[in-house]
């Protein structure tokens, strides 16, 4: 009890410090700072994507995205490596099937979600969304599928292949930017096209599609592996 109250005090102190150091100094900005100004003003002509955030994430600061993708890949690898130690023979009938509501709804929701996810990441440069968001939706769809139909075995190999290939293509596009355009992950080696059309913004749709596939397959892979490692008893 004493320890907990000490910890609470500590956290409170931290909160106070945050307040003093951050909140009190915060002022709502009147106009954009120079980086934002640059991005907003010039993005349309330079990159040609309708969604400026996408341009920032994929092109201007594409290295962040590469890092994120790597983080996910690492997490999926470690999890995959960690979990595969378990015996693969989980008794299939030990897992309870989903309720009828879930199984019926899933028949509609799963394909719909997958299409939605694909739509989100393909149109990442036009509407709010993008590779990560789309991939997350796909992952959720797979989760629903796994929960609703525990006997339905989904091939993890497919997901591994998609993951690897899409990642590799992403890096290849980046290098293509280095060799063919202005720098690493410069998406302008493909034509910018017309604003608001699907084939615009250079290589961004391609990149985001790769990312969407990668994230989706990674999340699905994680979920499926967790699914397979049910303990033998209870």
């Amino acid at each position, binding site marked *: 009890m004493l320890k*907990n109250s000490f910890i*609470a005090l500590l*956290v409170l102190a931290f909160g106070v410090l945050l307040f003093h150091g*951050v909140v009190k100094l*915060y002022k709502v900005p009147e106009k954009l700072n120079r980086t934002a100004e640059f991005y907003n003003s010039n993005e349309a002509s330079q990159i040609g994507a309708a969604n400026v955030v996408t341009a920032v994430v994929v092109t201007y600061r594409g290295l962040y995205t590469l890092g994120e993708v790597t983080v996910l890949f690492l997490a999926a690898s470690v999890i995959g490596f960690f979990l595969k130690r378990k015996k693969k023979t989980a008794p299939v009938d030990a897992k309870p099937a989903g309720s009828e509501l879930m199984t019926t709804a899933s028949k509609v929701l799963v394909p719909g979600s997958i299409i939605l996810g694909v739509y989100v990441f393909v149109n990442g440069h036009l509407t709010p969304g993008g590779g990560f968001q789309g991939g997350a939706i796909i992952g959720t769809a797979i989760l629903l599928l796994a929960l609703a139909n525990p006997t339905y075995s989904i091939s993890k190999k497919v997901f591994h292949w998609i993951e690897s290939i899409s990642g590799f293509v992403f890096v290849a596009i980046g290098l293509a930017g280095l060799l063919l355009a202005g720098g690493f992950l410069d998406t302008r080696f493909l034509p910018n096209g017309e604003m608001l059309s699907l084939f615009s913004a250079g290589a961004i749709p391609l990149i985001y599609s790769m990312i969407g596939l990668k994230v989706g397959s990674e999340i699905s892979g994680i979920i499926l592996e967790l699914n397979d490692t049910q303990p033998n008893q209870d």
Partner: protein
Amino acid sequence: MLLSIENIALASGILLILIGLLGALTNKNIIRMIVAFSIFDTGVNILIVTFGYMPGRTAPIIDGAKVTAQNIAQVAIDPVPQALVLTAIVIGFGVTALMLVFALKMHEKRKSLDINDYTDLKW
């Protein structure tokens, strides 16, 4: 104004941070600790988004009508915090997933999810 959007957002962000920290530091159950970390991350993300807020402006997405390629610098907010948050959320997800799997494997070995049971390496 005390109850302006940014104040509410800041307050909730900091509140979530503190709740998350408190949870992570006081809960004995490992899964709860991980959930608390998740809350902590969410709080930080809210803070980041708040830093991108500019009153009266809209999202930096060109739709040809309200936001065009010409007026976007005046009517849209800063796109960078959005990008940062995106990255932060994904990374947080990765870390959380890994922590959960660690918890799973720790439980498998020792049948306990109490963090006080894992003190073999010490001093």
